């Protein structure tokens, strides 16, 4: 959840500090015709009580006017917004804007404005090339239009805090903070990227979604195609540095590559690659012993960088060694295969309330409901290492219990994993619906994985469930017993 207050404070401080710079800059005057302010009233999602609408939070940021009368901004600003307004710099009138596309995994979004007048006296940005290391960057934006200068350090895969995925980003030598949400970054007067919120990078550096990734987003929405994310290779690898390890996998001294140690269920590599294969090349580039490729101008990057630029279903070329024999595989690319999904744009979290038991899928978002330490180590472990399988496509939890006579004695149960319902293994939320249709001898039998204080078997009288659920919904003011996707 965002701390809006502190963000605003930072924005104010930053603007004061940079006031002098903006006054003395000439290029700013022409570039500001491409920059707009974005005001979004967003509504948070309550993953603990998913039937409740979350709190309203006003957010502020900026956007970039691009060709085709569209405004490019950052997704986390607008993807939960109920109402969006935009404003040109130096003007007071606000125009209503709508979200056209959301690149949820790149933290990019495209807005449209109904009133064509908005675009008079504006200028779409000109796209630049990927800036080289050391190149000067200008970040235009802030609360009052300010300019901040920065420079390119290098390109890396960074963990996006708003998207919970590794995304290619340019690291910069200066701090880019939340005050710059959605503001365009220019190099030599041309648009080269958007600030990106990430973790794991060195202190006092910033990160930017570069122009080539922005163009990948545009490629994904060509011909009004709804953006469907960027694919994932679908495997883990291990470095091939140890001489005995190389011997064992029959790698000649000159050959480089990575061992494929884990293939994700339902992912791109599932059924095509084998654990123990050695990946020697990808997309025509040789893979080194640490899993990196060397790209001209850009530098050394992990092999997964390349998959980012492909569309779903497109094939990527992989060179592998299997039992010492070289093979080339054209692998069609699929979405990332995850046990715990992260949905930044999830307006309607999945849930089912039955006899007061609140069933939810364990998602990365769900971990925001309480302090990390309150989650059992088993759940923490799933967050770090959980991988899907045919037997477990989702982790289904009883998140908590809404107390009622029917669930007497079970009311302290919380955050337990549901294994079976009425003898049926629960591999995902949908399974619950079928399983509850066939009670055992008049009882609903819920088996949970909990050696804790509260036990592992829940029995409720199936004949009383419907009435009790109705009463519980009444008492706790729950409008629907399940989320729309389970209806």
């Amino acid at each position, binding site marked *: 959840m965002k701390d809006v207050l502190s963000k605003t404070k930072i924005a104010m401080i930053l603007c004061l500090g940079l006031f002098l710079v903006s006054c003395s800059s000439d290029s700013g005057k022409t570039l500001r015709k491409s920059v707009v302010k974005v005001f979004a009233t967003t509504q948070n999602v309550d993953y603990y009580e998913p039937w409740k609408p979350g709190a309203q939070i006003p957010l502020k940021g900026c956007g970039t006017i691009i060709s085709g009368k569209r405004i490019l901004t950052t997704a986390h600003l607008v993807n939960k917004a109920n109402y969006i307004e935009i404003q040109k710099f130096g003007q007071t009138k606000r125009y209503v804007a709508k979200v056209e596309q959301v690149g949820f995994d790149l933290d990019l979004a495209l807005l449209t404005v109904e009133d064509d007048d908005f675009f008079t006296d504006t200028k779409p940005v000109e796209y630049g090339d990927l800036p080289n290391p050391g190149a000067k960057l200008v970040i235009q934006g802030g609360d009052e239009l300010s300019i901040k200068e920065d420079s390119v350090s290098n390109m890396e895969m960074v963990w996006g805090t708003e998207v919970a995925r590794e995304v290619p980003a340019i690291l910069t030598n200066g701090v880019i903070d939340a005050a710059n949400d959605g503001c365009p970054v220019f190099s030599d007067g041309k648009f080269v990227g958007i600030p990106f919120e990430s973790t794991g990078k060195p202190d006092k550096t910033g990160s930017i979604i570069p122009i080539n990734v922005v163009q990948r987003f545009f490629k994904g929405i060509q011909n009004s195609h709804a953006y469907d994310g960027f694919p994932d290779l679908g495997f883990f690898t291990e470095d091939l540095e140890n001489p005995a390890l190389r011997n064992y996998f029959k790698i000649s001294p000159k050959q480089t590559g990575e061992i494929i140690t884990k293939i994700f269920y339902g992912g791109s590599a599932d059924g095509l690659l084998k654990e123990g294969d050695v990946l020697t090349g990808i997309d025509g580039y040789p893979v080194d012993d640490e899993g990196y490729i060397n790209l001209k101008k850009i530098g050394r990057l992990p092999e997964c960088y390349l998959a980012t630029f492909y569309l779903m279903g497109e094939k990527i070329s992989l060179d592998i060694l299997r039992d010492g024999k070289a093979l080339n595989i054209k692998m069609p690319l699929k979405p990332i295969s995850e046990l715990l999904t992260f949905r930044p744009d999830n307006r309607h979290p999945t849930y089912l309330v039955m006899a007061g038991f609140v069933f939810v899928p364990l998602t990365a978002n769900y971990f925001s409901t309480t302090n990390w330490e309150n989650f059992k180590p088993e759940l923490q*472990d799933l967050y770090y290492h959980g991988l899907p399988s045919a037997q477990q496509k989702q982790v289904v939890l009883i998140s908590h219990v809404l107390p009622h006579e029917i669930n007497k004695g079970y009311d302290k149960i919380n955050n337990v994993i549901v294994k079976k319902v009425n003898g049926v293994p629960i591999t995902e939320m949908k399974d619950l619906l079928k399983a509850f249709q066939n009670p055992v001898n008049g*009882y609903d039998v819920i088996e949970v994985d909990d050696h804790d204080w509260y036990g592992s078997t829940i029995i409720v009288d199936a004949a009383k469930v419907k009435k009790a659920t109705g009463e519980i919904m009444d008492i706790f003011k729950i409008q629907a017993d399940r989320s729309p996707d389970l209806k």
Partner: protein
Amino acid sequence: MRPINKKAAIIHGFFLLALFFIGSTSSWAGDDPLQKSLVKIFTTVQEPNFYEPWRIGSQQYMSGSGCVIVGNRILTNAHVVSNAIFIEVLKEGDSQKYIAKREFVAHDCDLAILKVDDPKFFKGTAPVTFGDLPFKRDKVAVYGFPVGGEELSITEGVVSRIELSTYAHSSRYLMDVQTDAAINPGNSGGPVFKDKKMIGVAFQGYNAVIAQNTGFFVPMPIVKRFLKAIKKGSYQGVPALGIYHQSMENDSLRAYYGLKPNQTGALITEVLYQSSAWNKLQVNDVLLSIDGFKVANDGTISFRKGERIGFQYPLGLHQIGDKMKLKILRDKKPLTLTVTLKDDIRLVPLVQYDTKPTYFIFDGLVFTPFNSNYPGINKDTPPELKALYFHGLPSKDHKQIILINHILSNAINRGYDSRFGNSIVTKVNGHNISDMKDLIAAFADPKDGHHSIEIEKAKDAGTIMILDAAKSQKATEEILGKYGVPSDRSDDLK
């Protein structure tokens, strides 16, 4: 429902009542005859080093309290003398310290017996008289040498609560008594009196940030069981049943398992491999009574009129090898069983004291069984290890968790860096690894000139390590020399 999880909440709250040593002066015993049993205990402690198990840990100086009991023995807490390499005792009113030795140490119930070879020590002392379990609001006095001064300190209060709770020293779930008499660091091992009779041994308290006026003592039923256990000449632990259970407060749950309206019990949800209940009790049995006590739907028994306590209570009164009668409901039919009581069984052993850590070094990989000392259970413990510590179940193929503790870097293991540390070993050279003995045996059987080590869940590192078998012997010797490790394995594996 086994309370080991409660430890997580409590471990930071409890402090054990041994006191770091400051100094001592002599004093004269007053008229109070109870004071003649009081002993101050000074220890030099050397903690083992579980990270580099071949190394000796640092020394610490601590003090605690104790009392003289019949037979010229001193009764104190186990944690006062744990890992002690040198112990001295000073009787109240004396100025001369005597050297003491540990005769028996019971870590599970946090009690210990010391002996003093010099018979002069016991001259003028008077052993305590044993009392019984008190009732709530009974007035009690705590004697000892807590922080705040040098002389004997006496504090008074009432009995606040009697129940089962977690002993911080061992994480075992046993009866203790709570009092509002001040109990502070240094009181550990000191006697608690009621009507001039000893009714317990002060042993733990809460950090004042969490709760005030809450001190705890080990009550006489636990002390008496300990004294009985050592009669054989060696200490055997407090038995455990080896089950997980859940309460049966829900009507449908009781009906489903066939309990009649007048029947109550606890549902058995797990039976631990090779525990007392193994091959006797089954999952889905309902425990109706234990050792003659009727089990209520909330898992309690009535141990005195109007007083309830967890059903595990009678286990703390028995010895290992004792028989215990259980009444259960299996498939809705009543059944009476007799179990032979065994020690507590766990996949991850509880904190170890007075032992040298087990380790085995192969090509610079330091293997240790995962126990509660290492890597230590705190907020930084990797969640997969924490999950095993709290909920891991032992099985035939999984008697211990073997970890690659860390790696002593050298040419033979290059490429396998710190990311491989703290990872769980599943197979070596194709053999399943269920304990340290399996590990050593498996390394004697390389395949095609390679040692292969398979590990679990090293997501960003890998899952397999291969080592050149031909170079192993030499590499291990070289690494031991370089890192100053006296032996490739601990004494217990030789």
